[in-house]
């Protein structure tokens, strides 16, 4: 933990992350950046990017990991808990409210129709995220062989989980060690 970072009370951390979460329709991350970097200046853009990179490779929800890292840096373990609870509590209650409405009106024909359209779009949004990460990966300057290897792992991961419907744990246990060994062996410039 950086000693120069001021300690903030858990209640303030909870409040800040609650606000961020409630603004985050369709994704919380952009709002976390906007508030924490641009508005409150808890950290710089570079520090934010570095924290985010670390959180993306950790298991679990990226935004909650980010909350833990930043909450911990600003207020220790209590700060970390406050950040996660801030991100989750109020939206959780809102989603449950929507769940009640869905159970009540989910059979109504026009609600069903609207949901069908929402589901189709939601699938498209996930596809776009996957493609964005993929495109970003293929854009960085690497030898063709590296890129083809990466592409092969993309295809294998997709086939295993999506088409063959293997358990995620099986796919990860086969492909992650294989990929780690391959990329470890690759000579680095």
């Amino acid at each position: 933990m950086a000693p120069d970072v001021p300690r903030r009370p858990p209640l303030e951390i909870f409040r800040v992350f609650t606000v961020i979460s409630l603004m985050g329709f369709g994704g919380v991350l952009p709002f976390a950046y906007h508030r924490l970097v641009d508005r409150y200046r808890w950290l710089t853009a570079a520090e934010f990017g570095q924290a985010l990179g670390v959180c993306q490779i950790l298991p679990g929800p990226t935004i909650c990991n980010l909350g833990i890292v930043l909450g911990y840096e600003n207020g220790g373990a209590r700060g970390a808990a406050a950040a996660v609870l801030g991100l989750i509590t109020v939206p959780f209650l809102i989603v449950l409210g929507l769940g009640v409405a869905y159970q009540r009106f989910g059979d109504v024909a026009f609600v069903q129709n609207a949901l069908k359209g929402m589901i189709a779009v939601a699938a498209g949004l996930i596809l776009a995220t996957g493609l964005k990460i993929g495109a970003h990966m293929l854009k960085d300057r690497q030898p063709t062989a590296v890129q083809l290897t990466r592409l092969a792992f993309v295809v294998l991961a997709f086939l295993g989980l999506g088409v063959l419907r293997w358990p995620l744990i099986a796919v990860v246990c086969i492909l992650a060690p294989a990929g780690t060994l391959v990329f470890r062996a690759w000579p680095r410039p």
Partner: protein
Amino acid sequence: MTELALLADLGIHLALLSLTAIGGGVVMLAPEIERFIVASHGWITHDQFAASYAIAQAAPGPNLLFISLVGWLIAGFAGAVTATTAVLLPPALLTLGLMRWGWLNSQGPWARAIREAFLPLATGFLIATAWTFANPMSSSVAHLALTIGAAVVAYRSKLNPVYLIALGAAVGLSGVL
């Protein structure tokens, strides 16, 4: 199955799964959760599962709350709390532990290789998740066209996704799907 046994089954499964969601968030857990909850146990239907995701997308907050909604549909409030805690707590404790011991910013060759390996896997898993929700083997052409159209727009613009979800609802209301 008693209520408690069901909650334990759900909680333990999600807790173990949560630790495998590496490199792209909990969204990529969706195919596996669907396999467990819909295909193996029949606790809810595929449509309910997909609706949970769409509803959570339309609400503020992290996308992982779709799992809360799935838990709610299976076993009410206790189910929602169990599912949310199970998916949140193990990775949170892991992250906190790594922070505490200062292991988070390792630049060693193995750490780099692991990061390298997970990048393509995350990409493939996300595409697989989209495949699961779009359900291309049993969806109408109009349905798939809407999915692909939304993907193209989301890929090329920085439009807030919530507008696209609203647009999807409007298209659905017209009854063409």
